[in-house]
């Protein structure tokens, strides 16, 4: 069973799925709990882009898990279990969103938070300066051991920054970087053109990097002050 794994490495989906599906069909609650824990935050993020409130998003997630359980016997492993779960989620969320008449199609025109430079233009030399377009204030090295970046403080910070991303960026970052889905899978699930998928992903990533940079530098200033 893959349920006991604690490493962030992504298991090869298909083999891991076969065991998992069998465990779920057999009513293995630990296997279900593990799957729920891993997928639900991303499911909430994706649902939130389609329905009006957090409460409705939670209902969508709950309805999705019931549909997954009752549909398990029909799951044939043509996609990964994860992709199948997200496909059901989007069906449930879209029909729910349509009922609440507040669906935001992922393919709609980009709102202001999804356009413009991802790095503050003030960090680059201006058009009338020598070396225009090159760094004026380049990123400084983080020089942190991996353990420091994996501290719970950083995780809480990163988690909050992820939750605060605009809805479409948040959904794409969850699916690509938290869940590790392939670009093609995410495009198919969200109905996104691949270029737009990368724009949303890159904007989200750039924002999260900035949050980490602010944290690392602030920490260093504090240290220098003693």
């Amino acid at each position, binding site marked *: 069973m893959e349920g006991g794994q*604690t490493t*962030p490495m*992504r298991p090869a989906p298909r083999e891991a799925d076969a065991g998992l599906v069998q465990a779920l069909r057999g*009513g293995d*609650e630990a296997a*279900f*709990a593990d799957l*729920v*824990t*891993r997928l*639900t*935050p991303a499911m909430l993020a994706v649902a939130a882009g389609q329905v009006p409130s957090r409460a409705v998003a*939670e209902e969508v*997630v*709950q309805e999705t*898990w*019931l549909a997954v*359980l*009752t549909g398990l*016997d029909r799951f044939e492993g043509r996609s990964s279990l994860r992709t199948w779960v997200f496909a059901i989620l989007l069906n449930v969320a879209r029909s729910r969103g349509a009922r609440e008449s507040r669906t935001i199609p992922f393919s709609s025109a980009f709102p202001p938070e999804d356009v413009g*430079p*991802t*790095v503050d*233009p003030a960090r*680059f030399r201006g058009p009338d300066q020598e070396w*225009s*377009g*090159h*760094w004026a204030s*380049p*990123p*400084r*090295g*983080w020089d942190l051991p991996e353990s420091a*970046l*994996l501290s719970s403080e*950083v*995780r809480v910070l*990163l*988690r909050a920054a*992820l939750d605060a991303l605009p809805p479409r960026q948040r959904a794409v*970052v969850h699916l690509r*970087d*938290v*869940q*590790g889905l392939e*670009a093609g899978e995410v495009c198919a699930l969200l109905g996104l053109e*691949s*270029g737009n998928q*990368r724009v949303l*992903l*890159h904007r989200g*990533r*750039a924002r*999260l*990097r900035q949050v*980490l*940079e602010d944290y690392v530098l602030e920490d260093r200033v504090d240290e220098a002050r003693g």
Partner: protein
Amino acid sequence: MNQGQDMNCDELVEVVTDFLDDALDAATRRRFTEHLAECDGCDAYVGQLRTTIGLTGTLRADDLQPDLRDRLLTAFRDWKAHPSPR
């Protein structure tokens, strides 16, 4: 396009995800790697973005609110006790 020109830092930072997803055309990819090899600032930027992506991947198992988790597990027990007819 800017095919013949060197890539600037402010252009590079916008196409890192395209680079990582192997979505740049050959000419732009060459301009990207040539710039990266010579620019410490961009090298740091790309490294930090990679680190960010790696850290984001570790959030997978984090903090699902207990009440939602409990509701889902209750639903599982109900399903197990009364599998719905197909």
